[in-house]
C-alpha cells in the first residue's frame, strides 16, 4: 500500500500523580499511512489526547515517556534532540486543538498570530506572510479582511477554521487534530469536516483525527484506531472496522450510537466504567466489562493480531469474531453485565 | 460630701510628651491623697475650645505659656492672666479673682518708676504664691543647637529667657567657612508671612527678620532703639521717637515717618484684629519730619515693649490700596498673602514653598546687615529627622527640637561638631485649677494639691532635668523682675495632707471628703 508516514510502536506515556505513576498511554501501536485521515476514537480518559500530544513532545510537566517509539518518516520523534524536534514542529507536524477559543491567544489579532508562525517559523518576509495569510483564509473560507480581528470576534466554527488555517500555514506533512469539532453544533461541525476533507484531499495531507464520535470517523476517516484504557485495541480501514468489528469493545461502541434512519431499536450501553489506570486489571483491560470474557482474558493481555489486510485487533477470541458480533447485537448480552460490574 | 472625680486635661503624648508625662505623674501622686483623678487627653484645638469657651465646665488642665520677647516685661502675664477683669472672656480663664491682687496688678502697669514698679511686681508674685490659683511647675529650658564648624560660637547671642534662637543671633551669626547660609528647622508649617497677622510661632521668626520695628527687645530683655534712633517720654502719656535716617524698603523706596504712622494706624483699624490689643492705648499719632509722637490714653509702663517693639513697620505704598480694598470685603488683612512680601528688615524675602521651606536673603543695604548670606527655614515635622539632619549637615542650626533634650545633648557630645545651648525660658508650664468650680474655690485645697507633688520629680521625670522648678510666673530668666522669695516652695504628700486636714478635709474610707457642712455645688 502507501508508505507509512508515522509508525507508533508500543508507546507508553506516564503521568506522575499524587498516588503514583499512571500510564495514560500504555503500549499503544498505530501506523498512519501517508495521505490519509486516520481516526482515533475512544471514550473519555482513554489517552487519546495524551497520545496526540506526545507526538508533538509538548506535554504537561508531570508527563514522562515510559517507552516505545514514534517513527516519523523514519526518525523517532521520542528520542530526537529537542532542537531538531523544534524544527519539525509545525513545519512538518501541525496540531489543531479541541477548543480553538482557548488555543488562540486572546490579545493578538489572528493575522498577527498567523504572521508569527509564517515569519518566525516559516522564515517569510512580512509581505509574503501577508499574502500567504490571505491565501490560507481563503482556503478555509474566511474573508481575508477578518485577519485584523481578534479571536473572540469569531464564532466557534470560524475559530476552528482559523485553527485549521494556522495548522496548514507552513504546509506540514502531518496534521494532528484533537477533537476539532466536538464542541460545535451539528451544522457547523459538518461544515468544518467538509472543509477538512477538501483540504486534505487537495493538499495530500496526512491527518490524525482524534474524536470520541464514531459518526465523525465514519464521515471523514479512511482508517480508524480504537483506543481503550491507553491501548489501541483495534485498527483498520473504516468500513471494515465499523461494519465488521473484531473487538468486543468496538462492537459495543457501535451499538451505543443512535442512528437517524433505520429501525428505532434499543441502544445498548456498555455497562461499567473504564479501569483505573493507576492499577489496571491484569490481562485484557476490557475484560471486566466484556460479556464474552473468558478466563484467559482475565489472566493474560491479548496480543495485537492481524485479521486480514491492515485490520488488527487485540482480543483472545478474535477467531470467533463473527459469532460474537451476532451476540453483541442483542441487548440482553450487554444488560447481563450490569449486575457483574456494579 | 465626698469629692467627685476630678478631670485633668492634657494634650496627647505625640504632641506634648512632657506635658502628657507630668499630667500622668501628678494624677498618680494626687490619687495618693484619696482623690479620684482622671487624665483626659485631647488635642490642642479641643482643649482650647473647652478651656476658653466653656469656662465653668472643666476642672483642671495642663497649660503652657510660651516665651516671647515682649513677655520680657512682666505686665502682660501679671495683668492679663490673673486680673479679675479678664476672667469672663480674657486670659484669666482660671477665673482667679482677688481684689488685692487686682489693685497691685493695675498699679504696676501705671508705675513708670522702675524700682517702685519692681516692688509691686514682687508683691503680685507673693500674692499668687500664697493663693496658688494655678499649680506652677517649671520654666523649661529651651534647648537649641548649631554646628560650630559652620558658625562662630562667639557670634551666637543667647537672649535671656529666649535662648540662642533669636533675632540677634540671626543678624550677627558669623560663618567660619564657605557655608554661609543659616539652614534651620521648624516642626510647624508656616501659616503665612504677613506683618498684620500673628499666626503660628514659626511665622513670627520670619516676620521679625523681614519687617523692622521701631524698637526691639534686646538680649538683656530690655527694649532698645532700632528703626527709631531714640525715644523720649515727654509726659506719662506721650512719647516721641526719632526715625533712623536712610532706611529703605526692600523694593528700594525710602521708609518715612508717614509709613510708621500708617503701620500703627493699620493695626488700629479693623483689618488686623490680632494687633488691635497692642495699640488700644494709643490716642493719637503725630508726625513731624523724622519725629513721631504717640499720645496715650493712660500711662503705660509696658508701652515700649508691648507696642513700639511689637508693631511691624509696613510700606504705605504697598498696603494702603490693599487695606482700602479689604475694607469693602469680609476678609481682613490676615487673608492677604503678599506674593513678594516687602519690609525693611535685615533679611529680604526670597521664596516660600508650602510645607517645605522659606528662603530669606541678607539685606546688604540694611544699616545692621547680617553676616550670613541666606536664612533658610526647613520644615521638618519630627524631632528624629531634625536631629538626623543636623548631624548629617543638612541643617546647621537646630531651632526647634520637640524631642528629648537629653538625647540632643548626648548626640552633641558624641558628635563633637555640635554645640547645644539651653536657656531658662520666659515661658512656663503649669496645671490650671478652675477657681470657679468646687473644690478649687478653696485656696487651701489648691495649696494642698500644689504642694503634694515634688517639683524635682516633675523636672526629672517630665523634662529630663531641662527645666527649672518654679513657683512664679515671672521667669528667673528675668532677674530684675523675678521674686526669689517665692522660690523653694516646700512639697510632699505629708505636707499636703496636713494642709487638707487643717482646712477640715477628711479621709473617709480612703477617699477625700469636703469639710463638714460643705456641700459640692456645681453650676453646670
Amino acid at each position, binding site marked *: 500500500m502507501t508508505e507509512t508516514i508515522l509508525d507508533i510502536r508500543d508507546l507508553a506515556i506516564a503521568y506522575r500523580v499524587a498516588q503514583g505513576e499512571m500510564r495514560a498511554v500504555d503500549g499503544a501501536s498505530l501506523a498512519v499511512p501517508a495521505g490519509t485521515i486516520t481516526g482515533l476514537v475512544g471514550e473519555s480518559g482513554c489517552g487519546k489526547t495524551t497520545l496526540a500530544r506526545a507526538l508533538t513532545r509538548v506535554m504537561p510537566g508531570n508527563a514522562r515517556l515510559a517507552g516505545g517509539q514514534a517513527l516519523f518518516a523514519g526518525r523517532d520523534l521520542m528520542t530526537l534532540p529537542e532542537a531538531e524536534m*523544534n524544527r519539525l514542529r509545525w513545519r512538518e507536524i501541525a496540531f489543531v486543538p479541541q477548543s480553538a477559543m482557548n488555543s488562540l*491567544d*486572546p490579545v493578538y489579532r489572528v493575522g498577527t498570530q498567523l504572521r508569527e508562525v509564517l515569519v*518566525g517559523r516559516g522564515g517569510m518576509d512580512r509581505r509574503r506572510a501577508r499574502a500567504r495569510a490571505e491565501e490560507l483564509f481563503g482556503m478555509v473560507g474566511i474573508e481575508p479582511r477578518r485577519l485584523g480581528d481578534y479571536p473572540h470576534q469569531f464564532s466557534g466554527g470560524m475559530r476552528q477554521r482559523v485553527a485549521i488555517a494556522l495548522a496548514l500555514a507552513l504546509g506540514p506533512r502531518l496534521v494532528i487534530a484533537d477533537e476539532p469539532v466536538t464542541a460545535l453544533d451539528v451544522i457547523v461541525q459538518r461544515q468544518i469536516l467538509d472543509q477538512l476533507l477538501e483540504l486534505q484531499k487537495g493538499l495530500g495531507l496526512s491527518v490524525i483525527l482524534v474524536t470520541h464520535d464514531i459518526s465523525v470517523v465514519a464521515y471523514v476517516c479512511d482508517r480508524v484506531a480504537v483506543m481503550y484504557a491507553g491501548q489501541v485495541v483495534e485498527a483498520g480501514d473504516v468500513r471494515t472496522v465499523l461494519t465488521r468489528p473484531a473487538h468486543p469493545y468496538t462492537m459495543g461502541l457501535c451499538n451505543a450510537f443512535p442512528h437517524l434512519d433505520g429501525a428505532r431499536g434499543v441502544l445498548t450501553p456498555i455497562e461499567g466504567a473504564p479501569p483505573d489506570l493507576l492499577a489496571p486489571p491484569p490481562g485484557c483491560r476490557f475484560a471486566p466489562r466484556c460479556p464474552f470474557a473468558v478466563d484467559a482474558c482475565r489472566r493474560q493481555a491479548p496480543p495485537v493480531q492481524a485479521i486480514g489486510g491492515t485490520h488488527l485487533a487485540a482480543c483472545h477470541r478474535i477467531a470467533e469474531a463473527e459469532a460474537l458480533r451476532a451476540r453483541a447485537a442483542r441487548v440482553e448480552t450487554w444488560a447481563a453485565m450490569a449486575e457483574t460490574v456494579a | 460630701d465626698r469629692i467627685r472625680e476630678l478631670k485633668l486635661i492634657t494634650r496627647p503624648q505625640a504632641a506634648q510628651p512632657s506635658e502628657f508625662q507630668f499630667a500622668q505623674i501628678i494624677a498618680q501622686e494626687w490619687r495618693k491623697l484619696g482623690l479620684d483623678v482622671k487624665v483626659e487627653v485631647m488635642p490642642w484645638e479641643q482643649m482650647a475650645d473647652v478651656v476658653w469657651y466653656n469656662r465653668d465646665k472643666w476642672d483642671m488642665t495642663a497649660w503652657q505659656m510660651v516665651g516671647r520677647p515682649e513677655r520680657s516685661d512682666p505686665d502682660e502675664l501679671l495683668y492679663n492672666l490673673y486680673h479679675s477683669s479678664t476672667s469672663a472672656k*480674657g486670659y484669666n480663664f482660671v477665673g482667679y479673682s482677688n481684689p488685692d491682687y487686682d489693685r497691685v496688678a493695675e498699679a504696676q502697669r501705671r508705675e513708670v518708676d522702675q524700682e517702685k514698679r519692681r516692688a509691686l511686681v514682687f508683691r503680685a508674685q507673693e500674692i499668687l504664691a500664697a493663693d496658688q490659683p494655678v499649680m506652677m511647675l517649671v520654666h523649661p529650658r529651651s534647648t537649641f543647637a548649631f554646628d560650630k564648624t559652620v558658625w562662630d560660637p562667639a557670634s551666637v547671642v543667647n537672649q535671656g529667657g529666649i535662648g540662642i534662637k533669636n533675632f540677634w543671633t540671626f543678624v550677627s551669626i558669623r560663618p567660619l567657612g564657605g557655608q554661609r547660609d543659616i539652614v534651620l528647622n521648624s516642626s510647624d508649617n508656616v501659616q503665612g508671612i504677613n506683618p498684620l497677622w500673628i499666626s503660628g510661632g514659626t511665622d513670627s521668626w520670619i516676620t521679625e527678620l523681614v519687617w523692622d520695628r521701631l524698637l526691639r527687645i534686646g538680649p538683656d530683655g530690655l527694649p532698645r532703639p532700632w528703626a527709631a534712633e531714640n525715644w523720649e517720654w515727654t509726659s506719662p502719656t506721650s512719647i516721641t521717637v526719632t526715625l533712623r535716617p536712610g532706611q529703605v524698603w526692600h523694593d528700594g523706596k525710602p521708609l518715612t515717618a508717614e509709613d510708621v504712622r500708617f503701620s500703627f494706624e493699620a493695626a488700629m483699624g479693623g483689618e488686623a484684629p490680632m494687633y488691635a490689643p497692642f495699640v488700644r492705648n494709643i490716642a493719637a499719632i503725630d508726625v513731624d519730619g523724622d519725629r513721631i509722637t504717640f499720645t496715650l490714653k493712660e500711662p503705660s509702663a509696658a508701652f515700649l515693649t508691648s507696642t513700639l517693639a511689637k508693631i511691624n513697620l509696613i510700606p504705605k505704598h504697598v498696603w494702603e490700596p490693599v487695606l482700602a480694598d479689604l475694607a469693602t470685603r469680609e476678609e481682613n488683612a490676615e487673608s492677604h498673602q503678599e506674593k513678594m512680601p516687602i519690609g525693611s528688615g535685615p533679611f529680604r524675602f526670597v521664596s516660600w514653598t508650602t510645607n517645605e521651606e522659606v528662603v530669606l536673603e541678607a539685606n546688604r543695604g540694611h544699616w545692621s546687615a547680617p553676616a550670613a548670606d541666606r536664612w533658610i527655614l526647613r520644615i521638618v515635622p519630627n524631632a528624629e529627622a531634625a536631629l538626623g539632619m543636623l548631624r548629617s549637615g543638612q541643617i546647621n542650626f537646630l531651632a526647634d527640637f520637640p524631642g528629648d533634650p537629653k538625647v540632643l545633648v548626648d548626640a552633641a557630645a558624641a558628635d563633637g561638631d555640635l554645640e547645644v545651648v539651653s536657656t531658662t525660658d520666659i515661658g512656663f508650664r503649669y496645671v490650671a485649677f478652675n477657681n470657679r468650680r468646687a473644690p478649687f474655690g478653696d485656696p487651701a485645697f489648691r495649696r494642698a494639691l500644689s504642694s503634694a507633688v515634688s517639683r524635682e520629680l516633675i523636672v526629672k521625670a517630665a523634662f529630663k532635668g531641662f527645666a527649672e522648678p518654679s513657683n512664679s510666673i515671672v521667669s528667673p530668666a528675668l532677674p530684675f523682675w523675678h521674686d526669689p522669695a517665692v522660690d523653694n516652695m516646700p512639697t510632699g504628700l505629708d505636707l499636703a495632707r496636713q494642709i487638707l486636714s487643717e482646712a477640715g478635709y477628711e479621709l473617709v474610707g480612703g477617699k477625700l471628703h469636703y469639710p463638714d457642712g460643705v456641700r459640692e455645688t456645681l453650676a453646670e
Partner: protein
Amino acid sequence: MSGMRQIAGRLAQLVFVLWAVATILFLMFRLMPGNPLAAYIDPTFTEEQQRILMARFGLDRPLWEQYLIYLANLLRGDLGDSFFYRQPVFDRIMELLPNTLVLTFSSLIIAYGFGIVVGAWLAWARGGLAERIVIPVVLTTRAMPEFWLGMVLLAIFSFWLGWFPAGGTRPPGAEYDSLLALYASRDFLSHLALPVLTLAIYSQGLPLLLMRSNMLEVMREDFVTMARIKGLPRWRVVVLHAARNALLPVATSFAIAVGYQIQGNVVVETVFSWPGLGRELVNAVSASDYPLAQGAFLMIAAVVVVMNLIADLLYGILDPRVSHA
C-alpha cells in the same frame, strides 16, 4: 458607540460617588460638636470680631444653606478658604498634589517594574528554592508598617551612611525655574530616593504576587501550549504569550494601586517631611482646619475614584476581548 455609552455611564457613577463622599465629609465636619473655628479665635477677640470671622467662612448660616453653598462652590472648583492659611484651599492643594503624584507614580512604576519581572520569573521557576525564599520575604515586606520601614531606611541611608537627604524635595534654598525643572534635577532625585524606595518596597508585593499567580494560570492555558507546539522560541512563548496575557490584570491593578498608594502616602510623607497632600491632610486634621482637611480628603478621594475608573477603562483598552466586543 456602546463604548462611549459605557464611559458616560462610568462618569456618571464617578460623579455620584464624589458627591456622596463630599456629602459625607460635609456632614462629618459640620455635625461635630463645638465651634469649628475655636482653635482660630483668639480670646481677646470681641464678639463682633468673632462674628465676622464666622461670617468670613460662612459658618453663620443654617446648615442646609451651608451645604448648598458648599456644593455650588465645589462645582466651581472652589473648596473654600483654609482656616489655617486663610488662603483658598484649592491653591494649596494644587501646590502639593504634584509632589504627591510624583511620589506615588515613581514608586509604583518601580514597584511594578520590579514586581512584574520578578513575579514572572518566579512563575517560570515555580517550585524552586527561589520561590521558597522570595515569597516569605515579599509577604514580610507587605506586613511591615510603612513608617517603620521608612524610619529604618532613614536611619541607615540618611543618618548613618549619609547617602541621601532626610527630607523635603530639594536642597536648602535651591531654586528652579519651574516644577518640571525641579523634578528633572538630580537633587530632586536624591530627595526622592528614600521615600520612593520605602513605598516601592512596600508596594512591589502586590504586582509580584499577582503577576506570579496570573502567569501560573496563563501558562496552563491552551494557547501557551499551542505556542510551544508551534515550535516558537521559548522566550517568545513566555514573554509574548504568557507574560503578555498575565500582564492584563496586573496593569489594571496599577491604576487601583495608585488609589491605594495615595492614601498610604500620608504616612510616608510624614516620615520623610515630603510636602505632599497626605501630610497636609494630617496637618489640617490636627489643626482642625476643616476646609483644608475636607479639600485634601476630597482630592485624594477624587484621585482614587478617577483611578478606579481608569482601571476599568484600561482593562477595556488592554483587553481586546472587552475593547473590541
